[in-house]
């Protein structure tokens, strides 16, 4: 473990902003909340944040992304890929978001081999930071996602005037080469350990059972309509809980062109399984027509379907969906606890 003075870390970031060809983005306070956005100077960082609105997923899997461009020519169409490979330097990612990115990596890179995602991901650099504040909606402690020892290139822990820095990759260690860092003292190592050990306990919310039990709990409760209906009745089908979630990745592909151009392209954009038309097919059939079907699908997917397929519980407990659901019916912890109690009462 290394240690860097905060002012030196700022210099490091400012240096990257100045000289790295990649865009440097980081967590900033926009007055009413925290967001990841392009960084103009290190001083704008707010690394003591609780949670950002959207997760850094948006940098590898953008909200809107050109996939293919076509151009009409004499003898037909020319079709070219049109997605960007550009990576970002992302400063200030919390452990639960790093875990979410690792999950997406397993899906987009290791399994489904999505090249647009992989290129952006591999060209990026993740500088994580251990939580100093805990969001009141988060239940990461109980999901085992409050701390992590992987998924980052560098991981910072705030030690007042210094950061303890854990190096997670060669890219990470190279980044530090030019900076005045030193080895951490034993006390500093202990201090980081104490902080990370205590972190999971800081959450007021949590699921009341071990997360490993979630897949079978959901299997058993697929038909527990009393609970599903209770939440679906208030659901606005607005898709907020989908797009706000760091592990959701459903998308739609649209053709976009302009009337006077002979070129056009396809764009993939974030979609949400809570939206009414998500499972509708040509001819009018809708395979999840009722709000309750869609609402249940989301929670099944988070706690069961993705687990069955890729081995991950796809809710990392960030609490974003709880915080941003206008109708206040999206909280996975609350719903999972209710299912747990109704089964184990």
């Amino acid at each position, binding site marked *: 473990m290394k240690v860097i003075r905060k002012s030196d870390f700022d210099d490091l970031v400012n240096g990257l902003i100045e000289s790295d060809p990649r865009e440097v983005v980081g967590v900033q306070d926009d007055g009413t909340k925290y967001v990841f956005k392009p960084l103009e100077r290190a001083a704008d960082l707010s690394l003591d944040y609780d949670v950002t609105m959207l997760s850094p997923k948006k940098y590898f899997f953008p909200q809107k992304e050109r996939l293919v461009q076509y151009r009409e020519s004499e003898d037909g169409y020319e079709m070219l890929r049109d997605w960007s490979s550009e990576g970002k330097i992302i400063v200030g990612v919390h452990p639960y978001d790093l875990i979410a990115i690792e999950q997406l990596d397993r899906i987009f890179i290791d399994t489904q081999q999505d090249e647009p995602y992989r290129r952006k991901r591999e060209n990026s650099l993740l500088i994580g930071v251990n939580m100093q504040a805990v969001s009141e909606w988060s239940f990461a402690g109980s999901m085992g996602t409050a701390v992590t020892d992987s998924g980052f290139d560098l991981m910072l822990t705030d030690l007042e005037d210094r950061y303890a820095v854990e190096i997670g990759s060669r890219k990470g260690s190279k980044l530090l080469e030019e900076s005045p860092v030193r080895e951490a003292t034993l006390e500093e190592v202990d201090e980081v350990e104490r902080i990370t050990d205590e972190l999971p306990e800081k959450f007021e919310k949590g699921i009341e059972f071990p997360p490993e039990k979630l897949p079978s709990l959901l299997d058993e409760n697929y038909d527990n309509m009393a609970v599903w209906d209770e939440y679906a009745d208030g659901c606005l089908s607005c898709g907020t809980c989908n797009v706000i979630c760091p592990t959701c990745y*459903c998308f739609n592909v649209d053709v976009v062109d302009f009337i006077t151009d002979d070129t056009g392209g396809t764009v993939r954009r974030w979609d949400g399984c809570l939206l009414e038309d998500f499972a509708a097919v040509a001819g009018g059939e809708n395979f999840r027509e009722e709000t309750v079907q869609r609402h249940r699908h989301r929670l099944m997917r988070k706690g069961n379907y993705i687990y069955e397929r890729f081995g991950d519980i796809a809710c990392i407990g960030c609490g974003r969906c709880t915080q941003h659901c206008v109708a206040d019916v999206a909280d996975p912890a609350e719903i999972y606890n209710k299912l747990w109690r109704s089964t184990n009462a």
Partner: protein
Amino acid sequence: MPSEPTDAEPNWVHYEPEEATLVAKTTFNEIDTVFEFELEDRDELGHVPGQFVQVFVPGVGEAPFSVSSSPTKDGPFELCIRKVGSVTTAIHEMEVGDTLGIRGPFGETCDIETFKGNDMLFVAGGIGLAPLRSMINFILYHRDWFRDVTVVYGCKDPTEILFPEEIERWQERDDIRFDITVDEVPEGVEWDDHVGVITTLLPGLKIDAPNTYTIVCGPPVMFQYVQEELDAKEIPHDHIYLSLERRMHCGVGLCGHCQINDLYVCQDGPVFNYEVIKDRPEALS
């Protein structure tokens, strides 16, 4: 900055379609046409029966279609397409020599190895014959690998019959039984074969249930009734396969639109073993 088109690794999904040229089209009726496509950069599509391709029409969109020709057929591959919306209409409007984009083949289908030495029963409703035709022709090509082969095909009316000439050839063969029915016969149309819904054909079939494999494709409502008949015949559920249809935006197991509970039609299907999907509540309704 768009990435360089040259450095793609072949196994990675990069969403850029391959160019394919329409080399022939045969129209069956106002809404159904079979199209033959040739790929620009390779000779063969390299599919197995039951797989599908994503067809991209620039300026219109992308849609999945099962490959209707058997891999045993040389040269261009065939898609039989019903005109129902924007993409399908745009394809119908294409002329020989026009090009479009193809991605694929995609999808998991049944393992024909396990069928060897058994009876085969195909049940096709309407446009459902299009995907089954690939498998039927494959099996007819390797006819001696199998025992009895039966095809049951139901259509709304005689004008909607797909591949009429091919059906005639099938009917002339004595190593395959081919039964056909129509729901109704409009006035002025000549028809001297069976009339009635498809399930009326099934009870009459002699079936050696433990040694029969069945593949069904048709509209969702049909499955339910066909399944009742297959149950009556006591065909084991793991001997029954269904080809399902959902909305798809990627074809590679990502976009989420084709999800049936935990399954993805584009990856775990489109051809599913009935044993696998019968407990998935979202599969058949």
